[in-house]
């Protein structure tokens, strides 16, 4: 894993593609979460929600091994040196 300052064009391309995939997957989860808040009995929506939770977790695991932690405060592992600041901040990409 390289710090963001050392990324080549290919790294940025891979970052954007995988980030886009995470954004698409997590959008489904936000939308289903809000829907389920007012429709808590919808079994099909709950099944779809759980399916996307699994997909999101797998994508984020892959992302984090390539580009560093997505979450602060101990919700992601860190390599040494501490990598939280390495991947670009969302407003920088």
């Amino acid at each position, binding site marked *: 894993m390289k710090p963001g300052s050392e990324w080549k064009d290919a790294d940025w391309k891979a970052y954007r593609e995988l980030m886009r995939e995470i954004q698409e997957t997590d959008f489904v989860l936000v939308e289903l979460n809000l829907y389920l*808040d007012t429709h808590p009995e919808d079994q099909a929506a709950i099944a779809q929600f759980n399916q996307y939770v699994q997909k999101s977790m797998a994508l984020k695991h892959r992302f984090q091994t390539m580009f560093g932690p997505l*979450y602060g405060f101990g919700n992601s592992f860190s390599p040494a040196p501490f990598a939280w600041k390495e991947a670009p901040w969302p*407003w920088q990409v």
Partner: protein
Amino acid sequence: MWIYEKKLQYPVRVSKCDPRMAKFLIEQYGGADGELSAALRYLNQRYTLPEKVIAIVNDIGTEELAHLEMIATMVYKLTKDATPEQMEAAGLGAHYANHDNALFYHNAAGVPWSAMFIQAKGDPIADLYEDIAAEEKARATYQWLINMTDDPDLKDSLTFLREREIVHSQRFREAVEILKADQTAKKFF
């Protein structure tokens, strides 16, 4: 508590440096119907709402924080390379004098954000009706902003946010119906 996630909810790209558009977009950052107002309004109301609607208000309030970050990213990207001369020509001279190119919570006319923009009445129907109105006003503002730019990248992100206001409005309307049904239901003790 909240856990920060190093990602935007939806990608934000801009085609060019455009401080003129940034000046208008800041309405949705620190304006009365903007994302800061939305997030703080909902996250404050949730404590005293009935159990059945806390989740939806909590979760929409949380999503608003993600929208606040998207608007901030737009404003930041549109102004980061602007010179003082460009800022002034775009009507941001007064902003520059006080803040350089930093963001600040004020509306398009420069009026700073105020808690007077939002309310918590303690009456769940009154609070949820305010929330529905807030979403509709934010949706209208996004439409006016979309009308004011020809930047296709910016339009794409703004269109996403406009759509989210519609979804939030619908969910708040459902929350009202849930409370009404609960009120009129026969209760046996």
